[in-house]
């Protein structure tokens, strides 16, 4: 639990790592191409790639948005400790 509270910045690393771990699944998926009827097995399936491209763009924009938020917050909470911020902001 302490690991999670080391700071908001650490969360972004975590998210980035999650995004990075996703890719092997899509790579595997490409190998299992289902368009095998005409012997074109070697091609990767483009659909998951197209889809993940959308997801990457969305993920990037969300991260940018969150970073702006964190920069704003860091003005008053320089340590960015989530538990502290939470204590100050709970009703």
């Amino acid at each position: 639990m302490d690991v999670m509270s080391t700071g908001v910045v650490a969360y972004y690393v975590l998210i980035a790592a999650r995004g990075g771990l996703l890719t092997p699944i899509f790579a595997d998926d490409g190998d299992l191409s289902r368009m095998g009827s005409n012997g074109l097995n070697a091609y990767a399936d483009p659909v998951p790639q197209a889809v993940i491209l959308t997801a990457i763009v969305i993920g990037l924009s969300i991260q940018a948005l969150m970073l702006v938020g964190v920069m704003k917050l860091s003005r008053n909470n320089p340590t960015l400790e989530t538990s502290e911020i939470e204590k100050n902001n709970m009703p």
Partner: protein
Amino acid sequence: MNTLSILWIVIPFFIGFVIYLVPKFDRYLALSMAILSTAYGAALFANPSPLTLQLLDSFGVTLVIDPLSGYFILTNALVTAAVVAYCWQTPKTAFFYAQLIILHGSVNAAFACADFISLYVALEVISIAAFLLIAYPRSDRSIWVGLRYLFVSNTAMLFYLVGAVLVYQSTGSFYFGGLAQAPPEAFALIGVGLLVKGGIFVSGLWLPLTHSESETPVSAVLSGVVVKAGVYPMVRCALVLQEFDPIIRLFGVSTALLGVFYAMFEKDTKRMLAFHTVSQIGFILAAPEVGGFYALTHGLVKSSLFLIAGALPSRSFKELQERPMPTAIWVALVIASFSISGFPMLSGFGAKVLTMKSLVPWQVIAMNLAALGTAISFAKFIFLPHQPPEKPAEHQPMRTGFWIAVSLLIGGLFATNGIYYEAYTIANIIKPLATIGVGWLIYLLILKKTIFKLPRLLEQFEHLIGVMSLMLILLFWMVLA
């Protein structure tokens, strides 16, 4: 009709950007968009045959629009119109309206699509737009609440994305129906994503803080429609796939009980309403066949309640006991509270009766308990003191926009009451009256005196993420069992 539907999905995004370019017409554009959506939603009921569109072959975008989504779309349109009316005289910038309309459009898209990837995109756009709306005041607290929301929903959507690709792997398309052939972990992963987005059961406990700490019109939109974007796919899945129906019903019942339990002991008006949203979502899921009507009712009533709660002199029930509110507000508040407790003559009654009728036997006792809890928690509102505004200097004059918004929503409640006439049998009328009566008795005799504070442990940021992974494991075992 096909072109019309696609146009209708695209237009809000277009208008959203136009508002930003032409800030002078922001309100008019926003309002006309909401009216357009209302007309479209109403037109859906006129032709009951479901409209299915498949763009770009089997792995492309699939849209399914039928009366079920019609209910959701109508809710969205009415709530947006009310919120625009509410904000009409406030100094909100064009940015606010632009985000509001983009949010409106993406929620519409979420209600129309029937494949996992378009849904993913719609849900992510919703998160971004909702974050910008929550963080609109630019205060530290609002930014923190918004960040927390964005983080939780983004993490959940990552789980969801993994699930979606598993479905694709086993069927070669992202259509909802493909979930049946997918491995159980796919349902668990997608389920976690939707449970978190929809604010269901323990993983939905991010919702009270977010909804109560944002501004009044924003919480009305969030509670009225945005959570439904997560609920709608669950309802759709339960209808398409019979084998997942019991799991979703079980979640519905437990959510209804959990939310109402928290709501009964809550001392803050907006937090109470937010917990109540959790419990009402449970009602929608408990009977997926009629969930649409319930969602419409709940959207109308909850957003009007949030708008009214924003006009009250204080947020704490204790202070409200001592400081009477103007009678006009009290009347509006009582009408809304009556509707949500299921009082005859209002659409909450029809919705509750319809839901109760389509329950499976094991659910009945639990759902009646939840209905009782609803009556108890809204007794808090009904028994607040009020007075005619004899000293006008004391209360600031109410804005007309507020009244337009509230009367639109409450008028909607009366009008939709007509949808389900058959509910009016004597047994059906007596039951909710008895429930309300018993609820009030319990409130007056017991709850009014007790002071009991529930711990907010589960609402802390770290626990939200932890609970998410626990839910994942739980869902996985439920599917396997």
